[in-house]
């Protein structure tokens, strides 16, 4: 992966930016601490030296040079521990007392500011240089007093502090950049993985899913959402594919029969039987028209399903009393069903108002009743129920017919799937239940098939205000 490619990744850019920011901030912090510490140490030495000088000046005033010399002699042995430097010299810079052997070379007698110089000392057979900061005072009798402090200790501390600061900044930066790089790589890897999966899906493999690694992070949330979308898409595509296959089959059969009839009519006409009677014409044309009607109904239903699937309830959301509508439909189908030997009852004790499309809901009920009419043998019962439950309207159609085997129930809701034996299969268009299911979905309800032991329960709960 080239540098420019890394920089094109938003996560890498982000990590880089934060790394730089944290490094700069840490540096500023540590450098400030270093500077503050150094100046504090310098001020302390300064103060100590000044105090010492004032002390010795007082001694001089009280007891003269002798007393100063005596004090200095007393203090000389403390050199090793405190690092204090004293020297009392006469006006010709000749040593009188103190722990320096002579006036340091190249040190001009400058008073009132701190001066710096180095002294040579013997430590364990080797000569070492000690940096010293000192003050020089001219005493009242013309003698010179030099008071200073060995700063090698302080310099060592500062040097170490400085090194520690450098290390701190360096390590912080390193850690942050490593973390950033890891994060960026991980992000990039997941995004790349998603992209690869999406490409596979675009090539037609709708069974692929984005990886969910149970970390419950935002990537998992995204992957779950996309997977849910893919599942919906896959379901729709499968439905569509099945529908296309079945349309081809279901339209071809009646169209073929239609063609046969028309050809037969043509044949008879060209055969010269001019005296074709009205009855003969009817015999040929009547069934052909019926076939045409069947094709037309299938197409209309398919379009209605497609529309119900595609549109929301944006247009024509009327107030519909489902109880009254169910009553109307039972009224319409009752005589026919009773003539077929079925008993129909309606159990809708109170109004059940909901927002929806009246015609589509009527179509839903129609399809369920026609299904019952088709599949329930004479002597059976069909019960239509509409009940208000908290939050929903429960609608059901129960019968005691052959029912639908549990394994077939999902399939029965798909277009063109007919369940049951061959005799009953032949009669339906295979679209009734799937249109009912589509209408239910459009109204925010889910149509389910259940076991009425024996028989079928078709049930759905309509929310009162879908969408």
């Amino acid at each position, binding site marked *: 992966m080239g540098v420019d490619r890394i920089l094109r990744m938003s996560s890498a850019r982000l990590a880089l930016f934060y790394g730089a920011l944290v490094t700069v901030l840490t540096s500023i912090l540590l450098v400030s601490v270093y500077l503050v510490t150094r100046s504090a140490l310098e001020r302390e030495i300064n103060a100590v030296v000044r105090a010492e000088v004032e002390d010795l000046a007082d001694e001089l005033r009280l007891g003269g040079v002798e007393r100063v010399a005596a004090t200095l002699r007393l203090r000389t042995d403390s050199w090793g521990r405190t690092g204090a430097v004293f020297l009392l010299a006469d006006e010709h810079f000749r040593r009188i007392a103190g722990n320096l052997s002579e006036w340091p070379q190249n040190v001009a007698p400058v008073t009132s500011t701190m001066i710096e110089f180095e002294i040579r000392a013997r430590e364990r057979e080797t000569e070492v240089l000690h940096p010293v900061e000192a003050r020089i005072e001219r005493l009242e009798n013309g003698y010179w007093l030099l008071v200073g402090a060995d700063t090698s200790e302080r310099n060592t501390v500062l040097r170490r502090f400085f090194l520690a600061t450098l290390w701190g900044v360096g390590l912080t930066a390193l850690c942050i950049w490593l973390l950033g790089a890891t994060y960026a790589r991980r992000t990039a890897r997941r995004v790349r993985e998603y992209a690869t999966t999406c490409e596979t899906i675009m090539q037609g493999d709708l069974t692929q899913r984005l990886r969910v690694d149970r970390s419950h992070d935002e990537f998992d949330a995204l992957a779950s959402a996309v997977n849910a979308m893919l599942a919906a898409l896959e379901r729709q595509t499968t439905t569509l594919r099945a529908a296309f296959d079945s349309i081809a089959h279901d339209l071809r059969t009646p169209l073929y029969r239609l063609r046969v009839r028309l050809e037969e009519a043509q044949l008879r006409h060209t055969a010269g039987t001019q005296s074709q009677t009205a009855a003969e014409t009817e015999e040929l044309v009547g069934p052909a*028209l019926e076939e045409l009607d069947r094709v037309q109904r299938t197409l209309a239903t398919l*379009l209605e399903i497609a*529309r119900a699937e595609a549109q929301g309830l944006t247009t024509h959301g009327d107030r519909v009393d489902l109880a009254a509508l169910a009553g109307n439909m039972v*009224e319409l189908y009752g005589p026919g069903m009773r003539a077929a030997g079925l008993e129909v009852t309606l159990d809708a004790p109170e109004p059940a108002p909901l927002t929806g499309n009246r015609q589509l809901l*009527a179509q839903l009920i129609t399809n369920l009743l*026609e299904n019952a009419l088709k599949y329930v043998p004479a002597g059976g019962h069909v019960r239509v129920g509409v009940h208000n439950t908290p939050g929903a309207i429960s609608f059901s159609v129960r019968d005691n017919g052959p029912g639908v085997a549990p394994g077939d129930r999902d399939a029965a809701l798909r277009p063109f799937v007919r369940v049951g034996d061959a005799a009953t299969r032949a009669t339906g268009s295979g679209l009734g239940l799937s249109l009912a299911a589509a209408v239910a979905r459009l109204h925010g309800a889910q149509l389910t098939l259940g076991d009425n032991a024996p028989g079928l329960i078709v049930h759905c709960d309509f929310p009162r205000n879908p969408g």
Partner: protein
Amino acid sequence: MLSIRKSLDSTARANVGTVMHLLLIEDDAEAARFLAKGLRESGYVVDIASDGREGLFRATEGSYDLIIADRQLPHFDGLSIVAMLRRNGRHIPVLILSALGSVDDRIEGLRAGGDDYLTKPFAFGELLARIEALLRRGNVPEVTTRIRIADLELDLLGRKVIRAGKPIDVTSKEFQLLEFLARRAGQVVTRTMLLEAVWDLHFDPQTNVIDVHISRLRAAIDRGFERPLLHTVRGAGYVLRDGG
């Protein structure tokens, strides 16, 4: 279709008397030719306009009794033509033909001012019956209390049916059916028209659910009487009239 046309023809002539002028606005030449031929054989005078502009011009200039307009037309579509006619205060009945058949399309068509809406493809008998219904709308006053066909009498206020002086028991839906047929006595009424009017359903169920209701109604009003009043018109629908 021959038999349908004959029966519709005779009723149209008998009841309307004068020749009706229709304007057919249809851009599909083949369909227009076929429809015009059928309508002329049924006793109407038919003009054809082949696009929306010509249709609107003729509809505004000519004096027609009814306009049949395809919904999708070049220049102006059927709905715009209806809307423009209505804006100009022309209340001539308009029947819209359309390949758009969903519930919503239909509602849109009627809202635009169309008097009826027929989805393609349709049976010619359905079109004839609906034209007939539109042309004769208004012949029977909406506000009436009694309708009488031969010896059958409907009391619209008391919701009672009497035939030959004998009261007949019918359910309220049967009464609605009978009233719809009686208001259009002599006209063919299709199953679709009955579903729309009596049950407010705008789609065709797969089974012939209406036939059962009609046979029950027939059993109620015709059984035991010498002359049947409720007749089935093959391939089209039903008609309530006195005599074969």
